[in-house]
């Protein structure tokens, strides 16, 4: 396999997306940016630039994603290095918010305001001329028109996420930063939101969103940045990283009505390279998780064994990211 990852820690700084026109500053630029709180390093020597398009910022909880986004949003000054958005330093420069939209991770939105009131409030604080019209349009864009006059306190988690997005894009910002925007959304809402972000990217906007779930990145983020323990562990095309994550060695525990017979049948398949009979069931090792998932159902049916449980033993995100970092 060709190496899809750009080493960031010690290697040369490489733009994630090279810009076509050099004179304009990159939309987002970090140069050896770091941020620590006392002795705790949250973001450690991170460098990258982003142009138009959607980029997913992926990493387990505590990796420094929020700290990084808050530095870009001007809510945190970098302890070292530079952070620039559209060529400007966002910290202590409120006028930069004309061109930045931010969807914070925290769920709280003024519960006593209706969806329309909230988005209109954002539009007015942006000083937009037709606040009401723009607010309504933004609400339609996120598909909340049915709930436009309902207090946000009555919204579901997913609706709250969407109204936050509407509030942050009402002024049509050049750069949109979203912290875990898909949290609490059902699959249908998620797809709609991803389509919205893709549409904005096609219109030339720069979108950076964080997530700790790889599948969320799949649909929108063609480029992803992977953060682990404050460092940029990898950056590149999501498919390559996705393949790395799924094709690593996996251990899967299978319980069935007849473990021994199932073990024999599984060993015949090349996707499986080890099977062990344990008290907890069959411990199966495979290099291709996706292939194995498709395989197990067919194999068990063909030998007449009923599956009781299929559990991936090392599916935790931490282990996935851990694997990525070690590579």
């Amino acid at each position, binding site marked *: 396999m060709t190496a899809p990852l750009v080493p960031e820690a010690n290697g040369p700084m490489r733009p994630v997306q090279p810009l076509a026109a050099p004179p304009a500053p990159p939309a987002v630029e970090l140069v050896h940016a770091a941020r620590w709180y006392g002795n705790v390093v949250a973001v450690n020597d991170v460098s990258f630039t982003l142009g138009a398009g959607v980029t997913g910022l992926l990493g387990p909880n505590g990796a420094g994603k929020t700290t990084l986004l808050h530095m870009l949003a001007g809510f945190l000054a970098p302890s070292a290095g530079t952070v620039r958005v559209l060529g400007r330093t966002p910290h202590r420069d409120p*006028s930069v918010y004309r061109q930045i939209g931010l969807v914070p991770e925290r769920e709280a939105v003024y519960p006593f305001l209706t969806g329309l009131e909230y988005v209109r409030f954002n539009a007015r604080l942006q000083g937009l001329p037709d606040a009401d019209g723009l607010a309504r349009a933004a609400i339609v864009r996120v598909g909340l028109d049915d709930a436009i006059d309902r207090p946000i306190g009555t919204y579901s988690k997913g609706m709250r996420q969407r109204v936050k997005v509407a509030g942050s894009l009402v002024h049509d910002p050049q750069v949109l930063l979203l912290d875990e925007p898909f949290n609490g959304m059902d699959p249908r809402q998620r797809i709609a939101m991803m389509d919205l972000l893709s549409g904005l990217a096609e219109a030339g906007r720069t979108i950076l969103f964080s997530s700790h779930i790889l599948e969320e990145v799949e649909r929108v983020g063609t480029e992803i940045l992977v953060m682990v323990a404050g460092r940029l562990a990898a950056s590149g095309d999501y498919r390559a990283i996705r393949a790395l994550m799924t094709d690593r060695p996996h251990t899967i525990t299978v319980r069935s009505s007849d473990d021994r017979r199932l073990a024999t049948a599984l060993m015949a398949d090349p996707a499986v390279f080890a099977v062990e009979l344990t008290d907890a069931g069959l411990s199966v090792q495979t290099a291709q998780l996706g292939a194995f998932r498709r395989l197990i159902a067919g194999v068990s049916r063909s030998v007449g064994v009923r599956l009781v449980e299929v559990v991936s033993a090392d599916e935790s995100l931490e282990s996935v990211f851990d694997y990525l970092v070690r590579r």
Partner: protein
Amino acid sequence: MKDDAGVGSIRAIPEIARVTLRQLLGRRRTLLLVLLAALPVLLALAFRVAGETAIQPFTRRVFDTISITILLPLVAILFGSGAFGAEIDDGTIVYLLAKPLSRWAVVAGKALSAMAVAILLTAASTALAGFIDLVPAGNDGVLATEAQVLAMVVGSVCYVSLFLALSLFTRRALVIGVGYMLVWEGALSIILPGIANLSIRQYALGAASAIYRLPVQEARLSADTAFVLSGVLVVATLAIATWKLMRIELPGDTD
């Protein structure tokens, strides 16, 4: 600070004030404060029924023991520290800060709304109680009522400014506020008269003396001094709040 957000910022003040108003009024503790504000009115009614409508006993028993000692600081400290405090706690402050607005405008919107509710509660309570019990006592009663209301207005503005600024530095602004109210103004200022220059209650009483010399435990400041010190306090604390808001850092929750 680079800041080309001037005119838009002024227009944003009423927007921020309106949302803050709904925020402050929608909290459960506001209901408790309304009940507290009703107490002087109920006592005034009781005195009226008992036929005691003289200025001195009313002012001593109701205004001095409840209105200016407990009601005013409690209401104004709660609203002052809550105007930013609640938004910092639940993270909604992000929605205000991620806007192209001068920070003084955000402070102004917050301060004005907190002052408005504090004045509304304390001044209405005092005016109503005065109307019931003092106004029947004649012209002096009217002046005494006006003086008491003025004390509430000046006190509200000062307490709100101070504790709004403090809430940007510590999450314990409310606790500090209650401590200030009980220890500093309650105990120390009686023992050490020099503290009058640093006591908002004395500013309020001093300001009231511009209208009428209330028969309360001595107002130690002249009206002029009280007004000047109040003005200095409000301008200084709101300027500090603006300065702090410009530098405020919001780390994430999880990272």
